[in-house]
């Protein structure tokens, strides 16, 4: 298989409520990525459109977006794996380019979640679980991740304060990321009591501050073969490894609750393909839809042994200056989580880091970066390893 590179990345600013249509929202991420790539829309061989369905009136959004972005008559495909849709889109783009079917593919992720209420959104996300056997009990995403948190705490003695420290870190970088939806600082004091701004109970043991906010946003990643990469880019970023996995949608079908098996499985595949180990990763983006998700990611990716993730955050090892910087763009917790756009935004962050273009968030001279993007409650996982 030929080498595959990323030569353009873009995203919209993530906002609570985008004052426009989905095609206009998608245009923002696409324009930034296309300009970044120095390509023209007519140079792009195909597009992959990624989102989680049911948030928009528009059915089959790929066709509408391809037309609006000037990507006709090239083929366009729609892919969906809930919150990991656009890293799945990246994998599809990789396959299309590596196989030689297309020399270039635009991966376009978007989500406009603001057209429905938060409770309606929870109900839709809850139906990303098993609607026959679990949703009738009144499930929602925070409750499922809370069950993972409870199991992690029971097994390893992880505390609510350990989780709050992850939120504090996210906010440190959300403040300096101009694309983030949440730009304010967060301190441990804000978790002090149930009446504190971050301390209100949501689904035990998770509190308000443990949960990411819904956001509207779009992202775009331009994926090309080696020939195009050399023709259009001075700093191509290569896809070195890409792993994916799935597991039982039912919690009843899971062997381990203190971690996500899809993350471990995807990471093992990606490390093997890239020929690197956890020690080689200089900067990472992980799927912190909830604080516990970042804690479990440390352990699944091998940054810490199972149960020792808390030592990383207590020692500030995942801060920008630490031994393994994680989510130094604010993560989903502060940057925001527009479901279909999230994976593409994570990839953008790592590409900018590897190019040395991450501005105030720049980690010192990273050579290899990793993206961990999870769909549903550990239902789908993608781990992607990128290098200069």
């Amino acid at each position, binding site marked *: 298989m030929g080498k595959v590179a990323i030569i353009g990345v873009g995203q919209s600013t993530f906002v609570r409520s985008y004052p426009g249509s989905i095609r206009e929202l998608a245009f923002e991420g696409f324009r930034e990525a296309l300009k970044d790539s120095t390509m023209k829309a007519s140079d792009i061989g195909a597009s992959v459109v990624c989102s989680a369905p049911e948030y928009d009136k528009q059915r089959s959004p790929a066709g509408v977006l391809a037309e609006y972005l000037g990507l006709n008559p090239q083929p366009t495909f729609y892919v969906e794996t809930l919150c990991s849709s656009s890293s799945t889109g990246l994998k599809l783009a990789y396959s299309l380019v590596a196989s030689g079917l297309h020399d270039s593919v635009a991966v376009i992720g978007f989500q406009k979640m603001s057209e429905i209420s938060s409770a309606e959104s*929870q109900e839709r996300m809850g139906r990303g679980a098993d*609607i*026959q056997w679990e949703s*009738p009990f009144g*499930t929602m995403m925070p*409750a499922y991740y809370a069950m993972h948190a*409870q199991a992690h705490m*029971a097994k390893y003695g992880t505390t609510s304060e350990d989780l709050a420290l992850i939120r504090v870190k996210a906010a440190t970088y959300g403040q300096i990321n101009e694309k983030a939806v949440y730009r304010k600082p967060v301190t441990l004091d804000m978790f002090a009591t149930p009446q504190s701004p971050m301390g209100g109970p949501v*689904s035990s043991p998770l509190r308000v501050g443990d949960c990411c906010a819904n956001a509207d946003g779009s992202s775009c990643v331009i994926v090309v073969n080696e020939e195009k990469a050399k023709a259009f880019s001075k700093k191509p970023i290569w896809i070195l490894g890409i792993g994916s996995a799935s597991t039982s949608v*039912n919690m009843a079908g899971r062997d381990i609750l203190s971690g996500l098996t899809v993350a471990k499985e995807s990471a093992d595949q990606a490390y093997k393909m890239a020929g690197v180990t956890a020690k080689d990763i200089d900067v990472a983006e992980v799927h912190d839809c909830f604080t516990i998700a970042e804690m479990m990611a440390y352990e699944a990716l091998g940054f810490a042994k199972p149960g020792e993730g808390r030592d990383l955050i207590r020692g500030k090892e995942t801060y920008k200056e630490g031994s393994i910087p994680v989510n130094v763009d604010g993560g989903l917790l502060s940057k925001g989580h527009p479901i279909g756009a999230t994976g593409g935004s994570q990839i953008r962050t790592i590409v900018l880091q590897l190019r040395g273009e991450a501005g105030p968030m720049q980690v010192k001279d990273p050579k290899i970066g990793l993206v961990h993007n999870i769909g549903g409650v550990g239902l789908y996982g993608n781990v992607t390893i990128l290098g200069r």
Partner: protein
Amino acid sequence: MSEKKKEVDDRFKKFGTVSFTSLTKTNDFITNLEQGKISGTRCKDCGAVYFPPRADCCKCLSSNVEWFDVAGKGKLVTYSKLEYAPVGFGEDLPYSIALLDYGTYKVFGRLAKDLPENEVKVGMELKTVANKLPNGQLNYVFVKA
């Protein structure tokens, strides 16, 4: 010309506070639940055990399955108490969802309302019982073993 309406077996619409599906080949689960039994399926060809129940066995591709009762005690794997609920479940708040491990299979459900919160501990033994909800729907809950 009139066509006689076919009887639709939509028993599953009775499952849970809000049911999202009514047509399934595992509808006998509801009849069993009405009789106070929580049931899973076992493949008669290869012996694979399934909870939640399934009409089809993915291990040997057989659809020759039989019901068994979820009986005895399970160990509490994890749980969470919800303070917010999705649309349609607000009246039930607060409630706790939980997972019980029976060894060869696990059961996802709710903790019984009258189980004191301070007594709930991961690893404790509980059993699964049928439950009628205030709105007339059926589910099952975990009670002290």
